[in-house]
């Protein structure tokens, strides 16, 4: 329950990002602000300060006040506001990818498990291959190609900086992780005594699918949802960190960590804060997942692999 | 007296308060005697057996009373001393032989493990002893079998292995908790015969936990009938079967299907079902189902009385 409360707070905070940028930090988190200054304790302070070494400039550190609460990044942008905006993208991508993943996995699992025979062996074989394929390499390869050019598939054109690219990629690569257990579940359900009994009674297959199989599969998918979202969150961060996820000027927690990498030794807050945000969210999601699993099926043995 | 259980009570701390599952149970077991504890599931008979081995691991269990084993109260024993007893002087076999053996070790290794805990025998001698024990259980080709894994054996074989393991350190007391319930009827008979034979060979006392009056009649010297956590009646097997004095015992015996004579419906022999631990009545727990019920039954539980033949019923003399 605590986990759920924390998630709500995080989501609410991210939704409030524009309000925060307008009323609290009072700066545009997507425009560089290299020459600006703010007033701190009555003194004007440059946002980009001359470095102690005398070479180059260092952005302002955390002020712990309204403006530049967590300091600025190397473009002089307010990090706190960017984290709130970035969180929107991170959450959106993780949630969107989870939706895609669960839908596809549910479909594939049900089709493979329920139709059996030839269709099942083909699908199971494909899942096996994808299972053996290094997931991160698949994600990275797809991202690297699509980010560099976007996707033109017939009438569909997706720009290379569209959020749809990371959402689709992350959503697809983990499909085998979920589809395999779903297929197993459907398979054992289809062979279970109560389904056999229904078949013997002449209940139509569609009705068995709707009444007996689907509810069970959906329960499993719900149990998987928070855990997959946690995993997707981490994957998005990794892709964005490798600069093949969310593309500038848009931000996500992963890209902000990347922004902070160059400032790591001088202004560590830029990289540390979004990492903490990711960790908090993922911990909350994982605990939520544990809770959901216990609520639905205390003996379920679902493990989401990394 | 090998085993003397006095006023044993077991209850569990639950969110709804203390749940008494076994109440004020007393019985004795003499050397090389077979005592059967009979009761329906939930009557507390298995829990009583586990408490004698001190195998109730639930931290919310509260056990009071005395369990004197060879004159020593094992409820106050320190854990290391208790461990020396467990598997040594007292051993236990369980209901489901399919799950009672660790799947990843050969059965030989599992018997050897127990022998090595309780004796100073070197491994090779322990192995020989394990094989001769298996042979004594009527297992042909014991040497071969001892190298098998549990999943490669049938249920009856596994129960023989369990018995061999339990007897491996010549225990004075063998507790058998529904040893044949999970087995086929033909195998059941073999296992029971084996237990009777072994009692003579190893001179062990046996505490037999069962719900099956038929098994009791075949094996036990004495019987204690448990109902809803209390002993309803106890006495010599022949006496009990010939003259049940508690209405519940009478009902149980009447429920045994007879080959000859009038057919009765086993399910309606005793109307109703035993009460759950948290909804036991204030008086006699059997009163709501009892045909001999009188006013006093609902007020206070009847006490177990009598020297050899004990009955907990206000109308003990009237049951026929």
């Amino acid at each position: 329950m605590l986990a759920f409360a924390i998630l709500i707070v995080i989501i609410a905070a991210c939704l409030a990002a524009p309000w925060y940028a307008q009323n609290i930090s009072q700066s545009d988190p997507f425009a560089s602000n290299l020459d600006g200054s703010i007033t701190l304790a009555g003194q004007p302070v440059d946002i980009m300060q001359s470095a102690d070494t005398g070479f180059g400039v260092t952005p302002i550190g955390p002020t712990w006040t309204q403006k530049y609460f967590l300091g600025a990044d190397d473009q002089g942008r307010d990090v706190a506001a960017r984290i709130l905006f970035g969180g929107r993208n991170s959450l959106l991508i993780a949630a969107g990818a989870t939706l895609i993943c669960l839908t596809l996995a549910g479909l594939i699992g049900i089709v493979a498990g329920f139709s059996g025979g030839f269709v099942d062996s083909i699908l199971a074989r494909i899942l096996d291959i994808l299972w053996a394929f290094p997931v991160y390499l698949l994600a990275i390869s797809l991202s690297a190609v699509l980010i560099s050019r976007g996707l033109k598939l017939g009438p569909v054109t997706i720009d290379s900086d569209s959020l749809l690219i990371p959402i689709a990629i992350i959503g697809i690569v983990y499909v085998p992780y979920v589809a395999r257990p779903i297929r197993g579940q459907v398979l054992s359900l289809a062979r279970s005594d109560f389904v056999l009994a229904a078949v013997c009674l002449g209940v139509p297959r569609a009705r068995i699918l709707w009444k007996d199989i689907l509810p069970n599969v959906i329960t499993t998918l719900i149990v998987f949802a928070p855990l997959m979202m946690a995993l997707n969150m981490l994957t998005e961060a990794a892709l964005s960190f490798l600069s093949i996820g969310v593309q500038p000027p848009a931000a996500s927690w992963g890209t902000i960590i990347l922004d902070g990498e160059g400032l790591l030794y001088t202004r560590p807050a830029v990289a540390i804060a979004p990492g903490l945000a990711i960790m908090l969210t993922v911990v909350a999601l994982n605990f939520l997942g544990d809770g959901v699993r216990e609520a639905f099926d205390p003996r379920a043995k679902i493990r989401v692999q990394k | 007296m090998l085993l003397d259980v006095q006023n044993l009570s077991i209850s569990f701390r639950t969110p709804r308060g203390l749940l008494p599952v076994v109440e004020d149970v007393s019985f004795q077991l003499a050397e090389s005697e077979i005592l059967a504890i009979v009761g329906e599931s939930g009557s507390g008979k298995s829990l009583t057996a586990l408490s004698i081995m001190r195998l109730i691991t639930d931290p919310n269990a509260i056990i009071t009373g005395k369990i004197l084993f060879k004159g020593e109260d094992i409820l106050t024993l320190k854990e290391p001393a208790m461990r020396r007893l467990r598997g040594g002087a007292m051993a236990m076999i369980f209901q489901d032989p399919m799950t009672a053996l660790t799947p990843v070790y050969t059965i030989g290794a599992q018997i050897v493990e127990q022998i090595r805990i309780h004796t100073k025998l070197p491994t090779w001698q322990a192995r020989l002893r394990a094989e001769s024990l298996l042979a004594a259980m009527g297992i042909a080709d014991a040497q071969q079998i001892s190298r098998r894994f549990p999943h490669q054996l049938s249920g009856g074989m596994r129960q023989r292995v369990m018995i061999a393991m339990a007897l491996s350190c010549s225990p004075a007391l063998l507790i058998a908790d529904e040893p044949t319930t999970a087995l086929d009827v033909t195998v059941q008979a073999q296992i029971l015969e084996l237990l009777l034979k072994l009692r003579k060979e190893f001179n062990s006392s046996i505490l037999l936990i069962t719900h099956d009056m038929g098994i009791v009649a075949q094996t036990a010297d004495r019987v204690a009938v448990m109902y809803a956590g209390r002993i309803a009646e106890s006495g010599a097997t022949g006496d009990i079967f010939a003259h049940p004095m508690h209405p519940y015992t009478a009902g149980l015996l009447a429920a045994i299907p007879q080959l000859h004579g009038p057919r009765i419906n086993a399910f309606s022999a005793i109307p109703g079902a035993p009460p759950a631990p948290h909804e036991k009545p204030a008086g006699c727990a059997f009163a709501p189902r009892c045909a001999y019920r009188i006013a006093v039954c609902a007020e206070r539980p009847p006490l177990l009385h009598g020297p050899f033949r004990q009955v907990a019923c206000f109308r003990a003399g009237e049951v026929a």
Partner: protein
Amino acid sequence: MIFLVLLRRLAEMVFVLFSISVLVFLIFFATPGADPAARIAGRGASPATLAAVRHAFGLDQPLPVQYGLMMKHLFITQDLTSFVNPGQLVIPAVLQAVPVTLSLVFGAAVIWLIFAVAIGVTAAALRGSVIDRSLMFLAMAGVSMPVFWLGEVANLITQARFHNTVLFSWVPALGYVPLTQNPLLWFKSLVIPWTVLAVTYIGLYSRVLRANLVEALTEDYIRTARAKGLSERQVIFRHALRMSLITLVSMFGLDFGALVGGGALLIEVVCALPGVGMLTYQALQNLDLPFIMATVMYGAIFIVAANTVVDMLYLLIDPRARGAR
């Protein structure tokens, strides 16, 4: 019989590897809008240059031929060269990077196995206690941290903030020193990456192990073990842990394979270790297709091999699996 089983596994492995290579090839060469020649020639290259590049790199041939050529250069003649730095041989570069990755993953695996077993067993033995709950919370936190972020924080602490304190003054600068060149420095330079990489897996494995142990401890055979007179420690280590390790071993095989196969990419990038992951990362940045192909295939081989080894290992450690075949 055994021979046939092995042969079948081998055929399966080859089939999976073939599928993966086709998939990777298609991703990079046949994605709509993708044009390797444009990437090689650079932005704004004239159509004539593009055509020349296309011809020089064999990109004007049909896709199956291109695929065949690449596989031939990769596996048979082993003289595949980079698109970006013409003349640079791919295979020696990958082989050179392997020891780095192996050093990293092997050390981390030792750390994570030791800690995961210690934490998992402790938590299971004290299940329900405050210690159990705090250990499991820490484990959850470990699983939930982005690895690259943890690496950066570790760098910040050991390289900058606290580098001049007694605690971390021994940490050498980022980078890799071959074991054969200076074993001590090899060890020192890898301690931090090992730890960072291990954290996630310690969290994951200790949680799985605890859950398995707690479940195992409710089994009938545990009651039997107790009834035999075994101490609680013996019960946990000999009976419960032995069963739970079966799951852990199969997890370990797959994770180890995935990491050696390039899964340690993020750590290698953050800690500046020139391993296979780093190579992949660099190749991806300039879309150096032969390099990508080589590293991905190398990774796939490791992962597929790990899968097979795990399956074989299963037969060894779980007697029930032997009976089932």
